[in-house]
Each structure stands twice: as C-alpha cells, then as structure tokens.
C-alpha cells in the first residue's frame, strides 16, 4: 500500500466487485489515465462553449435574504400530515440531493405534534422549577447575555428508517426512507449553567422539558444528558427557524429527535421520569415478547450510502464515487466500510475531516462499476468499537413489531441498466 504510484498504474482493488483503494481518488488523474476508464464524451461542438446571455447583460439585483437557484427547485422537503391537520406530522430532508454534512436550515427535517407556533420572542419565557432552590424565569433578552457554546450535532427522529423493519423492502427514495435526519451547527447557552443558577436539589435525577406548541410537547430527560445540553438560540449561524423551535430549543446531542424539545418554555427538575405520552405510548421498542424497551435515548451507530441511492441511477460503466453519511449518538464515527458484493467483502472508506462526535460524518469511496449487478452496503463503527449490525441480526433481536430506532445495514442493488433499488441482502 505504501508504494509510490506512477502515472501508468491502475488503482488497487480494495474489495470485491470493483471497490478501489479509498486513496485512489486523490490521484484521480493518474488513476483514470492509467486505467483507461475515461468514457467517450458526446460531442457538443462549438455550441457548448458559446457566449451565454448572462454574460451579455448585468445580473439580478440584491435581495435581503438569499434563495437557492431556481434550477434547484427540486431540492425541497417532502411532508405528510396527520388526517385532518396541515402542520402535524413530519417533513423530510432530501439527503440524496445534498452533499457535505450540514443541512441548510430550510431543509432541516421537522416533526410537529400540533403545527408550528408563531412565537413572539419578547413574550416567550423559559421557566426552570421543580427540585431547585431558586425557581427562575428567563427572557430571551436575558439568555442572549449568557456565554454561549457552538457545536455541530445531528438530530434524527427515533422513527427514522422505520420502514426498514417491514418484511419486504420498501421501494422509497432516500428522502422517504432516511430523511428524518439532519445536521446543523447549533449555538446556545449551556443548560448546566442555568440549572446551576437555579440550584438543583440532590435528589433530582430527571428533567421534564416542555415546548410552547399547542401540543405542549414534553419529554423526560435523564440528568446525565445535561452535560452536553444546550438551550439553542442559533442554527447554522442564524436564529433557530420557527420549524426548529424558534426562539429556543433544547439540544441534546446524540439523543433521539423527540427529546430535543422545540419552543422550549419549561424545565421541571424531578426525581423520576414523568412518563409522558411520547416516552410511553411512542418511542418505545415493542419486542416479540410483548415487552417494550423504554428510554432508548442515544441514536445507535448507523450509516447509509446517499450516492448512489434509489432514484439516483448509474449512467454507464466507469469510475464513480460512492458517498454517504454515518452517525452515532454515542460519539465519533471511527470507520465506515463499504461492500459492493452484498457484504461478502468490505473495504474501509475515506472519512471527510473534521470527524465530530454526534455529528454527521461523510464517507467516500472510489468504485469502478463494470456495468453488472452489484449490491452496495455501508457499515459504520463508532469509538466504542460498536459495529452497525446487519438488518437480519437486528430483526433477530427485535422482531418487526416496532418501527423505532432501526439502525441495520441498508442495501442498494444496482441493476444492469444502472437502476438502484432497495433490497434486503
């Protein structure tokens, strides 16, 4: 592996069915030339390099808040609402149409239990009470004067990828199967600081976090989550969007999305869990035995290939970059392996730096597709050594009666015409 490559060398095969060494793309020019895989290009003739109209007149005026190009109109969230409602349900991030690791604010996934409240920040208050020495009320103006911290964190709904528990592979695009997942840079006040000012009583083990939406969304949070918790005011540099909790939300890095309570208005410090609707009747994992796993807090280590994925079909044999996302609510991703032969052989991918704990990690892998059938899979490992399980192993343990916290390996089959399908392999 350490030998120096000359321009005439072909890239080394790293695993079966055309997976190349993860470093091959770094020397792509040499590799491609050596491998002779530059496809014949269609001839556009002189017209392709003509002087376009946008070079012959001045462009558009300034606008106050910029929008994406009109040519990117397909890059939008998709959503579905509960019967009889318009804003209660979920919207999904178009992961297959994005790259990098940060989700633009307008595309961050949403899960609302009674629409998006229209909160006047001057009227919003945060109350901290319960098992504290000094119950306190904070205004936004007051919170803005506190020292702040910034961290990149993914948020994933505990119900994301629930369709992969189904007995037959659902034919969905990545947005529909994995889109309740986003990642942003969040800035806010450490919750620990506010709790310290309120003076937490020794018997306190839990918090109840409650939102100011019309569902009064509430969840119990174990005290250990406070170590990394932020009362977030900013999302990717601007104030948190209404759909993500404006004017402030709880951020619990790595914890299932539902616990990151939006429109945060109240923290009640308690001795035990409150047993709210969402931590009992929802977000629990019903096992075949009839028992349910409760308080499944961090998102387990997980990954998926975003490119290619269903709907992003291959366009002829040749060199491709397989790329995807890996994440763990328990810490850092340390390795992502990819297979092109349905799990028979694996090779490690290149992880895009910086790799941050409890944030999305982008992985990349060069692949020379020979135009034949293939089954692509990715498998993440986190800092504790935990390895993402196969779907079969996960189902053997959990059955198929639940749809929460699926983290098994996802498989994309490539057909001979380049079409990409979801399969179980």
């Amino acid at each position, binding site marked *: 592996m350490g030998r120096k490559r000359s321009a005439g060398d072909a890239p080394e095969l790293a695993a079966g069915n055309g997976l190349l060494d993860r470093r091959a793309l770094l020397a792509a020019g040499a590799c491609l030339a050596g491998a002779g895989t530059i496809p014949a290009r269609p001839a556009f003739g002189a017209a392709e390099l003509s002087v376009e109209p946008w070079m012959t007149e001045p462009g558009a005026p300034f606008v106050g808040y910029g929008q994406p190009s009109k040519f990117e109109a397909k890059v939008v969230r998709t959503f579905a609402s509960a019967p*009889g409602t318009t804003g209660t349900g979920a919207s999904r991030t178009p992961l297959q149409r994005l790259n990098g690791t940060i989700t633009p604010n307008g595309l961050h996934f949403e899960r609302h239990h009674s629409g998006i409240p229209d909160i006047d920040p001057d009227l919003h208050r945060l109350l901290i009470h319960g098992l504290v020495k000094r119950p*306190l*009320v904070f205004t936004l103006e007051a919170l803005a004067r506190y020292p702040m911290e910034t961290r990149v964190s993914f948020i994933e709904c505990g119900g994301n990828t629930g369709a992969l528990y189904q007995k037959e592979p659902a034919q969905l695009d990545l947005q529909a199967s994995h889109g309740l997942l986003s990642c942003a840079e969040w800035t806010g006040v450490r919750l620990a600081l506010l709790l310290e000012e309120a003076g937490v009583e020794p018997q306190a083990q839990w918090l109840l976090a409650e939102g100011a939406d019309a569902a*009064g969304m509430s969840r119990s949070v174990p005290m250990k989550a406070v170590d990394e918790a932020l009362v977030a005011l900013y999302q990717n540099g601007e104030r948190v969007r209404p759909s993500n909790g404006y004017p402030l939300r709880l951020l619990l890095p790595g914890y299932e999305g539902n616990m990151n309570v939006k429109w945060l*208005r109240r923290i009640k410090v308690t001795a035990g869990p409150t047993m709210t609707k969402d931590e009992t009747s929802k977000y629990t994992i019903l096992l075949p035995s*009839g028992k349910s796993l409760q308080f499944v807090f961090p998102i387990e280590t997980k990954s998926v290939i975003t490119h290619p994925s269903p709907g992003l079909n291959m366009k002829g044999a040749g060199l491709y970059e397989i790329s995807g996302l890996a994440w763990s609510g328990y810490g850092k991703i340390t390795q992502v392996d990819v297979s092109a032969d349905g799990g028979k052989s694996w090779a490690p991918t290149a992880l895009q730096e910086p790799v941050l704990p409890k944030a999305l990690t982008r992985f990349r892998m060069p692949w020379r597709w020979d135009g034949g059938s293939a089954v692509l899979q990715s498998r993440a490992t986190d800092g504790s050594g935990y390895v993402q399980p196969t779907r079969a192993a996960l189902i053997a343990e959990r059955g198929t*009666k639940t749809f929460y916290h699926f983290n098994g390996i996802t498989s994309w089959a490539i057909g001979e015409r380049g079409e990409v399908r979801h399969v179980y392999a």
Partner: protein
Amino acid sequence: MSTPRHLSAALALFFLSTAALAETPDLGRPAEPEEIAVWDISIGPDGAGLPPGNGTPQQGETVYTAKCLPCHGEKGSGKPNDQLVGGLGTLTGDQTAVKTVGSFWPYATTLFDYVRRAMPFNAPRSLSNDEVYAVCAYILQLNGIIAESTVMNAQTLAKVQMPNRDGFVPFSRQK
C-alpha cells in the same frame, strides 16, 4: 519572580476557573409559586400534580361525542386518528400490534396529562378539569379498566392499574 512560571500559570488558571464558577450572569428572575402553578401542567405517574375535580364515564361520553369522536371514532375505535380502545392481546407474536390506551399505555396519569395539554386537537387547553377527568373515565371504562360507576378524581385516577403497566423494560446498550 521567585514563583516558577508553570506554577503561576496553574494558579492563574485555578483562580480563573473558580471565578468563572462563582460568577454567572444570574439574569433569571425568581419565579413566584402562583405563576409556576399556572404553567406546571405535567402530571407524575404517582398522580403528583393532578388538580381538583372529578368526572364519570357517563359524563365523559357526552364530552367525547361532542369533541373527540370526529377524530377518534365511535367509542374510541379510531379513524381517522389514533385508536384509543381495544388491542388487548396484540402485543405478542407475529400479528400487528394495536397499541391503544387500553392495550399499551402504562399509566392513566399520562392520559390525563396528555388530554389536558393537547386535546381536543383544534382547541387544546379548552376542557375544564372535570371534563378531562370525565373523558379519561370514559376511555378507561370503554377499555374495561374501570367500572361504569367509577368516578375519576385525583385519588382514583392515580390508583388505576393499567393492563400494560409492567410491559416496559429500561433500555441499556449493554445487554
């Protein structure tokens, strides 16, 4: 300068960090018990926080028919929204689980908490405490958990034994 440089640096850091701990912005205003009472609507599983008031299944049927039935169906049968009644025996085996208040919810206090804060969907916080107790009584009675004659109030609701009360196991990553 007799103090070694690394020691003075360590001391400076020590004083800095203790100062940081001692001095926080402290910009919260003390909350008064009366205002906390208005906001504190969560009910603990032991019934802590349940307000005065009461209601019977029969009274609950009237409220349910007027305000809940369009979404939750005749007698909690569901459609277009969540089914509230039935599903006992569906949690095990290969069949699809029908998770209702009766078959799945471990605490009756959660029902009171949720109905009071979030229901009816188009007018949350509009029911009186008596109406919430009554609706809870009706749903519990439809599920066969309480008798038609049972009055729900802060004492009785907290004592209701739900069928799936022991159906939950705290998750641990290490099996």
